[in-house]
């Protein structure tokens, strides 16, 4: 253990008590994200002291905007920073009763914050589903910056506020047709329900939150999605007020940095966010999971998917004739919302595989290509059905591209019944698809410079049906299984991904609160 004998006393630090020293800069987005979490620590468990590397005015604003509830001191002349020497901010030092350094937490680190809380006898302080990323690096500590660069500080200070101004009220002239006006100004190419003050108020009321509460900032313009503006788009899409219960976590999920909606919106690829609903909310709000599940079949699916898209257009600014540059687009951009047919699924439901309890309602998002159908009406064996599906899986993204893509296998009830009857578990089905989806090596030629061939040196060679192939997927986890659709017709589907992983879009699942 490192003994800290510091020449400069930390103001307000009481000896004989555990302490957290939190070094921060007011204009660092990671500090702005991380510091409010420490409010939740029990006061008697530890003394938290914020140490600001900025001046008094900026620090006061920071404390006020972010509602920091623990003492914050100015590190004048960065003397304390120089002694403790954090390389970046935020850096949190845990000192024991004797002032000895116990642990250090750098940047924003959800798990680290919860471990810190646990070490101090607290409940977790950073919930998994609040839209913050798992981890976010900080900014370089002020005492390591060259002197001259403090000039630009003023202009770069930006706070993420928790509430915004009320939305403007627009009173239409008597002769103006509200349907025409709203379609032209805020529509998705089809008429919308005018978001009248009364209708929006009912929607806001159902949310149980204040109208001006900011739920998310929607890329690419990072428009503030307040409860009221979300409600206005929900009205336009034809939602019932109770749908706010699903729409708010859906929007938080969409703006989760892992999902990378900014990239999904801006890409020239087909990707559109596919909304997948699980749990009791399906019955409570009437989400459909039977025949025509991808179609215009149920108000809940269609209006939720449409409201989400309208929010992306109107609040996010990702208009399909503007910043959204998709070469061909995706019919799912009108509405792309399915529910799992858990009743016809002999295995555990999708959200349980994603780590939630069965009785928990959940919404998941996947950056999806349009579904490609797979017909298999004649094969009697479950394995053959899976093999047929593997041929469709091989075509995801681009036939010769391996490792990067992911896919969701949409299994229809008849197919899953056959596979399950043959004693195949969900995990085994996924493993089988992983091991049997390969692209024959003979389909690659370096000279043609075709997409997917350049990276072939990284691909894994396997044998499929007696033929040398490159394995399509990087791991079984790249394939998900979702059971839905009508009980007649042996038609399943494969839904391909956009770019995946840390540099693309990662699937997210958020719980939907109980009604």
């Amino acid at each position, binding site marked *: 253990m490192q003994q800290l004998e510091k020449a400069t006393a930390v103001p307000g630090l009481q000896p004989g008590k555990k302490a957290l020293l939190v070094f921060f800069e007011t204009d660092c987005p990671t500090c702005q994200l991380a510091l409010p979490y420490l409010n939740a620590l029990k006061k008697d468990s530890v003394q938290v002291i914020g140490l600001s590397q900025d001046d008094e005015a900026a620090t006061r604003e920071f404390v006020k905007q972010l509602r920091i509830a623990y003492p914050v001191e100015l590190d004048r002349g960065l003397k304390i920073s120089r002694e403790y020497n954090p390389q970046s901010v935020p850096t949190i030092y845990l000192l024991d009763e004797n002032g000895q350094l116990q642990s250090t937490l750098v940047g924003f680190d959800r798990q680290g914050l919860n471990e810190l809380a646990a070490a101090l006898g607290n409940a977790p302080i950073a919930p998994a589903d609040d839209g913050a990323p798992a981890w976010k690096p900080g900014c370089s500590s002020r005492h390591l910056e060259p002197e001259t660069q403090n*000039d*630009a500080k003023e*202009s*770069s200070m930006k706070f993420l506020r928790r509430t915004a101004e009320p939305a403007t009220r627009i009173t239409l002239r008597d002769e103006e047709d509200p349907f025409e006006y709203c379609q032209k100004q805020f529509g998705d190419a089809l008429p919308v329900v005018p978001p009248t003050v009364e209708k929006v108020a009912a929607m806001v009321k159902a949310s149980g939150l204040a109208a001006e509460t900011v739920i998310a900032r929607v890329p*690419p313009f990072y428009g503030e999605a307040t409860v009221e503006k979300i409600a206005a788009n929900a009205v336009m899409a034809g939602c019932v007020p109770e749908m706010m219960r699903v729409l708010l976590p859906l929007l938080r999920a969409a703006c989760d940095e892992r999902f990378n909606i900014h990239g999904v919106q*801006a890409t020239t690829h087909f990707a559109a966010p596919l909304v997948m609903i699980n749990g009791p909310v399906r019955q409570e709000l009437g989400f459909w999971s039977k025949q025509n599940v991808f179609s215009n079949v149920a108000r809940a699916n269609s209006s939720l998917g449409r409201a989400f898209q309208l929010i992306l257009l109107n609040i996010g*600014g990702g208009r399909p004739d*503007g*910043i959204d*540059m998709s070469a061909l687009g995706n019919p799912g951009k009108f509405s792309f919302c399915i529910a799992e047919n858990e009743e016809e699924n002999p295995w555990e439901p999708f959200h349980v595989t994603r780590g939630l309890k069965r009785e928990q309602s959940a919404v998941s998002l996947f950056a999806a290509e349009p579904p490609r159908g797979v017909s298999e009406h004649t094969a009697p064996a479950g394995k053959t059905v899976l093999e047929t599906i593997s041929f469709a899986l091989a075509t995801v993204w681009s036939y010769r591209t391996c490792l990067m893509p992911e896919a969701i296998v949409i299994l229809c009830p008849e197919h899953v019944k056959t596979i399950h009857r043959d004693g195949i578990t969900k995990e085994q089905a996924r493993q089988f698809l992983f091991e049997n989806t390969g692209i024959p090596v003979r389909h690659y030629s370096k000279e043609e410079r075709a997409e997917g061939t350049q990276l072939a040196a990284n691909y894994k060679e396997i044998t499929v049906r007696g033929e040398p192939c490159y394995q399509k997927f990087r791991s079984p986890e790249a394939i998900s299984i979702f059971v839905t659709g009508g009980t007649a017709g042996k038609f399943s589907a494969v839904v391909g991904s956009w770019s995946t992983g840390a540099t693309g879009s990662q699937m997210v699942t958020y719980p939907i609160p109980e009604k």
Partner: protein
Amino acid sequence: MHDTINLENLGIPAVPVATAEFTSPARIQASALGRAGFDAIYVQHPIQDQTPQQIAARADAVVEEIVRRLTAS
């Protein structure tokens, strides 16, 4: 465009280069970030299927404009 404007906001003259297909989204994005009229420099589309020589020629075609944008006021 977003990165470039972040850098400009830090006081560093900066300019983005994109292919001509991205003219419209680049301008919309600049405008949304409070810099209406701030434009990217555009080269001929596409890039990914071009030979190294062809890509270098794209650079030759716009280097003067890049320098002008970083130095002119």
